[in-house]
């Protein structure tokens, strides 16, 4: 019935969108190719010294020379980012709901959250190493630390935008607090939560990379640091490109999830 018709409409929309989606991808790739050509050409024609900006081809060649380092680094940093992001996202939403429901808790804990966010992550990182050592967990904790607050604040903000008239209406039909939360409040807050998650996707990557600066052997942050301090500019760009790929990819996944889950977002 209604589920079937919804599936059908998605299907129809899907087939209608596909060529456009392809076209978009083609445009994106074209843009990347043009940027790459401009980069390569500018460095060659203008004779830019390699320690200011190396040729793109030299960077890609260096990455291809030691692919293991970049692949291992990419996967390790990805794992740290994902764990920190998932923990930060889940904790942020749950604590946001708790703050919304229990005003006393919010007044007690929220100021502590704010204080925690004023501590520079660099100061915090040295402590995390003392507590967790050079583990994957230590980096995930830093990624968590950078993400949960955004999600908490936006969840709270989203929940507070719920129209009291809608709440009154649902209550008049005998909706339980549980039903209110799942059917009205969370869906209303979802666009706000996704804004925070998109922010958190890049922040969690920053957290993971900064975490790796406190002594580790694998990860994009390690490659960045190593290249930076040996003035290996080509290696620095290699690590930057790999980080950009990870960050953009992750952001795109979150944005795609947002488009699917908050399909009514366009109406706002």
């Amino acid at each position, binding site marked *: 019935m209604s589920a079937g018709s919804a599936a059908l409409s998605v299907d129809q929309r899907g087939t209608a969108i596909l060529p456009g989606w392809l076209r978009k991808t083609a445009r994106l790739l074209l843009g990347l190719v043009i940027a790459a050509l401009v980069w390569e050409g500018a460095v060659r024609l203008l004779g830019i010294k390699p320690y200011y900006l190396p040729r793109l081809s030299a960077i890609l060649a260096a990455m291809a020379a030691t692919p293991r380092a970049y692949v291992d680094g990419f996967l390790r940093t990805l794992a740290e980012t994902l764990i920190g992001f998932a923990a930060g996202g889940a904790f942020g939403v749950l604590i946001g709901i708790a703050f919304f429901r229990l005003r006393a808790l919010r007044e007690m804990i929220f100021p502590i959250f704010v204080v925690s966010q004023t501590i520079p992550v660099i100061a915090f990182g040295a402590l995390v190493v003392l507590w*967790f050592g050079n583990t994957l967990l230590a980096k995930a904790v830093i990624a968590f630390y950078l993400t949960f607050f955004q999600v908490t604040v936006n969840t709270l903000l989203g929940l507070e935008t719920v129209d009291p008239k809608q709440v009154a209406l649902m209550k008049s039909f005998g909706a339980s607090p549980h039903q209110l939360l799942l059917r009205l409040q969370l869906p209303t807050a979802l666009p706000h939560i996704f804004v925070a998650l998109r922010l958190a996707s890049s922040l969690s990557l920053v957290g993971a990379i900064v975490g790796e600066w*406190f*002594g580790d052997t694998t990860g994009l942050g390690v490659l960045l640091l*190593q290249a*930076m301090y040996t*003035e290996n500019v080509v290696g620095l760009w290699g690590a930057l490109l790999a980080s950009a790929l990870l960050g953009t990819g992750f952001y795109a996944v979150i944005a795609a999830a947002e488009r699917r889950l908050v399909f009514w977002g366009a109406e706002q």
Partner: protein
Amino acid sequence: MLSRRHALAAFAAVALTAGSLPTSSSAAAETLTQASLRLKWLPQAQFAGFYVALAKGYYKAEGIDLTINPGGPNLLTENLVATGADTFGLSGGTDSVFAARDKGLPIVCIGVSHQITPFIFVTRKDGPVKTLQDFKGKTVTTWFTGANHVLTGMLAKEGIKADELKIQPQQVSVTPFVDGSVDVITATYYNEFYTIQSRMPKDSLKTFVAEDYGITFPRDTLIVSETTAKEKPDLVKAFLRASLKGWKDAFADPKGAVDTVMAVAPTLDRAQQEFMLTEVKRLMTAGKVAQNGLFWIDPEAIKTAHDFFLKYGVISKPLDLAVAYDASFIESLPVAERRP
């Protein structure tokens, strides 16, 4: 979680061996003791001997299951060793050991790696700086992690005050010096000096060496906590024995040692790492090492550095050097094993 379980297992293993006969550490190979070495920096040829010893199983043969933890820009090895997060540490140098002891951190130096000052002050040969006197009014960049004291010490010997020149904190890159916006730059023999030479010819450079002004600044110190030194002397000796073997192998086969390091950090530049190992060997075998062996703690050099830091207010009070620098572990090993 996992590391805590490991730590518990290591603790149990140590408690068991300590409870039974005082076994020689090589005989206790079946119960490996978990330990970690925190480096002062990221994996590179500066630490080749430790990586070689690990790769060749020298620590295992001594009954140690060693993990090498790299350092980073915001980590203080002394803190990590003092709190027990790491068992061994290769820390900044005599300066950081003094500073840590001055703050009351319970750490002990068990060996000194670089016997002479590993950094120099570099300027252009055709530039305005010909002597230390010419530093006046010039822009000098240095690290505020010890090198700054050497600079002020050298200047003081020539009667120059630090505020007569522009001393700025040195950033990562040597580019400001190569571009000419900085007159004098600080460089380690094994790292920045290489980078500078890759950008401008060596004979266009002039260097100022601390030793020429009567200052020696031994660096790269091996440290343990007071607890480890007191309760696990056999572990400390076993660690030193394995490390000595690793370093002697690294000096005998530098190419193989660089291979071992690059297996850990594949993006490093091989030529630079080979240069680094050559220079590190020179620093590690300088002074009295030919007679007394690697990781020698030279009491005179320590005393001179101590008095120097005291005079310039880097440390607030005189320190008990016999407690801060314990040569008994390294001296307990046969001198033939220690000689490079």
